[in-house]
């Protein structure tokens, strides 16, 4: 086993363990701020793994877009909403067995499927490293702007729509004008306008 291979394995296992640990932290943290930060950690180590898989562009995009923009957004929102953390802790232990059971079951199934006897080195040898002239960005860009140009455009539109809708959803409605509502005026009932008050008569002053 050559040195680079050992390094590669070390990097892989270290990053993988870190991803799993930070994943556990995401779901186990009571404080969402910490959870978000753990998620950031998971993203960063995932990016490392992706670079290992020679998809540099996506790895960087994950850092820039996810860590830089999306997770920041998360943190903004978490901090903006003034939540009290204490009552949220309850029942965690109560649901732990069922949660573990389910996730372990799913995990078992999945590992059964993707076990090394199906996807191991004997079946899929690691492909050769790309040459130094290889540019992942160029390669990806090439297919994106030719073969997948329509989905790409659609994705752009989708982002635009998402932006517009996010703004319109979160924008507080300010009632600037006082409008009449004729329907309401017509439908008005007696009870809405008149209140009969039983005023006690004054005592006679003798």
């Amino acid at each position, binding site marked *: 086993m050559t040195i680079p291979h050992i390094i*590669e394995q070390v990097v*892989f296992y270290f990053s*993988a363990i870190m991803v*799993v640990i930070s*994943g*556990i932290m*995401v*779901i186990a943290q*009571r404080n*969402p701020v910490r*959870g978000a930060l753990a*998620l950031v950690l998971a*993203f960063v180590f*995932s990016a490392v*793994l*992706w670079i*290992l*898989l020679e*998809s540099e*562009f*996506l790895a960087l*995009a*994950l850092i820039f*877009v996810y860590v830089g923009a*999306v997770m920041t957004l*998360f943190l903004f*929102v*978490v901090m*903006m*909403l003034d939540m009290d953390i204490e009552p*949220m802790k*309850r*029942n*965690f232990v109560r*649901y732990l067995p069922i*949660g573990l059971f*389910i*996730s372990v079951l*799913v995990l078992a199934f*999945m590992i059964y499927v*993707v*076990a*090394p006897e199906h*996807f*191991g080195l004997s079946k*899929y040898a*690691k*492909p050769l490293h790309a040459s130094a002239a290889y540019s*992942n960005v160029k390669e*990806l860009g090439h*297919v*994106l702007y030719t073969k997948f140009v329509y*989905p790409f455009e659609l*994705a752009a539109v989708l*982002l635009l729509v*998402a932006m517009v809708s*996010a*703004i319109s*959803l*979160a924008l507080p409605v300010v009632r600037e004008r006082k409008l009449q509502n004729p329907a309401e005026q017509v439908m008005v009932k007696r009870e809405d306008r008149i209140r009969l008050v039983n005023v006690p008569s004054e005592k006679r002053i003798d």
Partner: protein
Amino acid sequence: MIALSNYLILGAILFSLSIAGFVLNRRNVITLLMCVELMLLAVNMNFIAFSHYLNDIKGQVFVFFILTVAAAETAIGLAIVVLLYRNKKTIDVQELDSLKG
């Protein structure tokens, strides 16, 4: 040499972790959203691994689009959370039961 199955198993672990997160989390909606992100990460991991091992760039194209959609989803999801908080003064999942039949 790292086998393809290693990446896939890592994806599976991440995926079942996020499932556990869904089930265990009785707290706030934001954590749920983060679990979704984690789940997508697991999926992306599989895509990229396959792309690499099968030497097919399409897997990465898929991840690219998933990232796009995930970003959009997060933006809208958070906007809804904000709106929810503004209207209900809470984002506690246990108190959000207006869908109750």
